[in-house]
């Protein structure tokens, strides 16, 4: 297999909490790789560490341990100066279309900024071209962010990321703040860019349906760990981890006639990442948990019957189907 574009190995990020001598285990030893032109989806509930993982890849944060390798080089502790040659190759798209654009700059300045920083002369023509690529009117070059709607702002953010001709884009929940109809526009735009420009994506989202549309491979995170990773079809059609099952069963479906696949209602919320449960971190909400789950942490391995590259971290995996389960753990519903 060719060398992956990006390789994360046992990547860990702990945030010390002030005053109290505890740490938040935001990301706790995740390993994954992204190949050239590939889109990897990273999904999980809020607080599972998926955004932190993205920020580690974009080198906005230093990992506590583990490595981020880009094209075979370990860049996890490189200084800003040393990063310079490859800085333009890893770009980021942010979640909040309002906070991610400086309200005091024009669209032209916002998109031209990264070019200036990297010693490229931003030309009006170049910027207008970029605006056209992302589906905005190039005449809006001199306007300010407040004159645009959320969806248009997100396109400006995409144009800024494209300005440096990146090979990898970390997209941190790029569509979750947008309205449904706009969301699809932006997903399609990103899809087109990926195909036409061959950009690889680390696509972070909480919406499994969107990720399914955008990524060839998907990793599911829970409390700082990857609990299941695999090719899209394999993961969505034959998930093995109970948590993946629960997530899939909770995805809303607008078709009232879809045959009911399964119904799993987990009790409660994700435990605090300050003090994650021992052993398997999902055991506190898992209907299959037994003593072993508290003692031993399940390794992320390929289970019998799984496709190649489909890894699951579970002692008592579910059957490879999305039909059948009907688990209710919520006391108010039983």
């Amino acid at each position, binding site marked *: 297999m060719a060398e992956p574009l990006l390789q994360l190995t046992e990547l860990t990020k702990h945030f010390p909490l002030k005053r109290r001598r505890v740490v938040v285990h935001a990301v706790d030893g995740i390993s994954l790789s992204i190949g050239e032109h590939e889109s990897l989806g990273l999904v999980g509930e809020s607080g599972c560490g998926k955004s932190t993982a993205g920020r580690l890849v974009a080198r906005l944060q230093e990992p506590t341990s583990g490595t981020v390798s880009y094209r075979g080089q370990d860049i996890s502790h490189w200084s800003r100066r040393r*990063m310079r040659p490859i800085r333009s190759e890893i770009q980021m798209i942010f979640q909040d279309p309002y906070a991610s654009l400086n309200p005091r700059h024009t669209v032209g300045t916002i998109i031209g900024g990264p070019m200036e920083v990297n010693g490229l002369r931003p030309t009006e023509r170049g910027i207008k071209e970029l605006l056209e690529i992302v589906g905005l009117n190039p005449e809006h070059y001199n*306007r300010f962010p407040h004159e645009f709607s959320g969806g248009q702002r997100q396109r400006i953010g995409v144009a800024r990321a494209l300005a440096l001709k990146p090979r990898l884009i970390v997209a941190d929940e790029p569509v979750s703040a947008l309205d449904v109809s706009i969301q699809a526009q932006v997903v399609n735009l990103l899809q087109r860019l990926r195909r036409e420009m061959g950009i690889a994506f680390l696509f972070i989202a909480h919406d499994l349906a969107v990720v399914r549309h955008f990524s060839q491979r998907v990793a599911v995170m829970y409390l700082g760990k990857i609990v299941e990773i695999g090719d899209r079809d394999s993961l969505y059609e034959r998930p093995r981890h109970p948590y993946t099952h629960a997530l899939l069963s909770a995805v809303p479906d607008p078709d009232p006639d879809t045959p009911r696949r399964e119904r799993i209602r987990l009790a409660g919320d994700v435990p605090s990442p300050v003090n994650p449960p021992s052993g398997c971190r999902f055991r506190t909400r898992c209907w299959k948990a037994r003593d072993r789950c508290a003692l031993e942490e399940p390794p992320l391995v390929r289970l019998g019957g799984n496709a190649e590259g489909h890894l699951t971290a579970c002692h008592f995996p579910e059957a490879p189907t999305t039909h059948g389960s009907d688990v209710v753990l919520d006391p108010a519903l039983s």
Partner: protein
Amino acid sequence: MATVVLPETAEPTVTIGLSPGRIAWRRFKRNRTGVFCFFVSATFFIIAATAPLISLAYGKNAHERYGYRLLDASGYPPPPTGGMSPEFWLGIEPGLGRDVFMQLVFGIRTSLAIALIATVGLMLIGITVGIAAGYLGGRTDYWAGRVIDVLLAFPSQLMLIALVPVVDSMLVGPEEATPTWLRFATLCIVLTALGWAGSARILRSQVLSLREREFVEAAKVSGASPARIIFREILPNLWSPIIVLATWQLPILVGVEAGLGFLGVGLGPDVPDWGRMFLEGVQYYHLDFPYLLWPGLAMLIFIVCFNLMGDAIRDALDPKTKGL
């Protein structure tokens, strides 16, 4: 057909191509109270700037003792107007018999000059410390915070009085007489030194929240240097709080400067000064109330108008406060 994304069709209705600053300016222009107060405040500054010209036109200056012949035996001008006449518009000063109008005009000149310089000075320090503490964080932030804490714990009036002679003596030898320009400098320095902590604290918190904004992260991802982030990304967003803080500080400093004059640590008896007019006015007011009234009214009008203008600016910069 709708597989590729089509260009946006619906145009936003906001006026096109206006920067947030220009929009705020438009909004400000619509506020009638604000504009009126802006002109009143501006008038004060014009009076201050053109005081010598006014003196020339009026035909009198601030030093000469014009009215001693009009004062009674104990040195008071004729009540109840304090000697107002077509010749002496606002009457004459008790005791020395100088022209009150000229005293006031030149007093405004000194007071506003000191307040303005001190405002600029303390904003500069406040901005520097605020940005340094907020952006660099860590140790810098910790020590800046402690210094601010201590400064804010000083009883301010007392420290102002105590600092003036200290700074004086640092600028000239102990036995030499203090020239006026030097005392002027001292007052500016002291007001600045004791006043920056509040602004620094507020700007620091602003920088802290700006630092976490995604557009700063976007700049970092593109490899921007800290200097570029501070000057290109953060500073442009600080102008609003800086303007608001400055318009809030200036009238306060006018008051504080007058308070210093009132306490006798002003510029000395030869230099017309708003504060010293109060000091004398308070001594004479039982018999010559107008002498206290004129500086009092002038300062009241200035500060109220400047504050109202500041409010209008604040509303223009932050439309969310509208209607409050």
